[in-house]
Each structure stands twice: as structure tokens, then as C-alpha cells.
């Protein structure tokens, strides 16, 4: 069983994607299948970016055993007012600043759902929790 934790800062655009890169490098080192690795990298990046541009900051945890790889993205709010809308491709509440950086395509959550084997999202004003899982041995 492997467990890792990574802190994510609010509006930390300069470091956007760094945690996903670290996770990808680590998973590559332990010899994960390249196709699976690409799916994990895309989903992880999108969720990390969501935390940076929308949340007050939070934590990413990775847990892995011989059967599955789980990623949990927990932030400290302010929550998603309408999760159903947020899941709609092209719908985004990203700020002007985030859009200048090329974020805010409204493809984040749909991309995550498409890449993962399991996708769960819960959101309240005190925080959003996205849980995704991938089957490791297929």
C-alpha cells in the first residue's frame, strides 16, 4: 500500500500542474502501464487546476494497492453551487485572470470523469471532495 499527500495553494498559478507532474513521474518509476498513466495524468492535472483556480486550497492524496489507485482531491471551500452545471462540458465559472492563462474551458470535470474508472464528487460551502479511482490490474 502506497500513500502520498500533496498540499495545493489557492491561486498558485506558478506551480499549477507541478503536483500532477510529480505524481506522474512517481507512477512512471514504479512501472505503471503507459496508457493508464496518461489517463491518470490528465485527470490529476484537471483536478489540481480546479483546486488552484476555484478553491481556497486543499490537499491531494494518492493511495494505491495491487488492485486500484485512488486519488482524493479535498479543498477548503467555497464549494460548487451547482454540481450538475459544473459537470456540463463548456460551462465554467473561472475568473478573467484564470481565463487569461488559458484555463476555464469548462472541460475540467468532464475530462476527469471520462478518464477515471470511478468518479465521485461531493460539494458543500466548506469544501469539495472529488474522488477518482483507476483499476490497476486489467
Amino acid at each position, binding site marked *: 500500500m502506497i500513500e502520498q499527500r500533496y498540499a495545493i495553494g489557492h491561486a498558485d*498559478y*506558478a506551480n*499549477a*500542474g*507541478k503536483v*500532477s*507532474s510529480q505524481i*506522474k513521474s512517481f507512477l512512471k518509476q514504479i512501472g505503471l502501464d503507459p496508457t493508464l498513466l*496518461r489517463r491518470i*495524468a*490528465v485527470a490529476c*492535472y*484537471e483536478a489540481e*487546476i480546479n483546486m488552484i483556480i476555484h478553491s481556497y486550497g486543499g490537499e491531494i492524496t494518492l493511495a494505491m494497492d495491487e488492485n486500484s489507485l485512488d486519488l482524493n482531491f479535498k479543498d477548503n471551500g467555497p464549494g460548487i453551487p451547482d454540481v450538475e452545471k459544473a459537470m456540463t462540458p463548456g460551462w465554467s465559472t473561472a475568473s478573467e485572470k484564470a481565463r487569461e*492563462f*488559458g*484555463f*476555464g*474551458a*469548462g*472541460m*475540467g470535470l*468532464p*475530462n476527469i470523469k*471520462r478518464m477515471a474508472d470511478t468518479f465521485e464528487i461531493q460539494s458543500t460551502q466548506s469544501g469539495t471532495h472529488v474522488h477518482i479511482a483507476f483499476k490497476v490490474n486489467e
Partner: protein
Amino acid sequence: MNIQEVAAHTGWQIAVDSQLDPKVEGVFVGDLLSWVMGHAQPGELWVTVQAHANIVAVASLRELAGIVIAHGSEIEEETLQSAKDEGVMILRTPQSAADCVKLLATLGI
């Protein structure tokens, strides 16, 4: 054709060089990072006007062949450093994204 050959044939400026010299399998044009992340395929050469450091993470995570900065966009120092660290090659040209694609097509990409 590898990215070094693309640079030689197009005459585009090499803003960040890389020893990896990956094969260019195709081309993808886009400025919305999530769109690129969700739709570009590994090995594609990415043409964009975005020039901030986040493009490097996208290219690296998506395993793209490299980045072409079109329309002569100024590249931030942080982007250059990040690309060097990650081994992502960046080319730059005053040409439009459309002209870049036309030129790449003549090279069989």
C-alpha cells in the same frame, strides 16, 4: 520526422532546445489548456498562442512532441526555465497558427 528536423525545415526559432528529439506524430492547435489536455494525442506538436509556464505542464503530462508558439507571442522567462527543466522543446514563430499548420502539412505532418 523528429522535432529537430521540423525546426530545421520550418526555420522557426528554437526558444528551448531539448536532447530528447521526439518524433512528431501529428499536430494539435488550441489555446484552452483543458481542451488540449483532453483531446491532444501523445506525440503531437502543439501550436498555441499561450506562452505562460502552464503550457509546459500540459505538454509534459500529455507527452506532446513539443510546443510551437505562434503569432510571435512573447515567452515568459518562467516558461523557458520550466521547459528546460522538463525537457520540453519550444519553437517560436511570427506566423499565424493557421500558417504553421499549412507549413507542417507540406512536411507531411
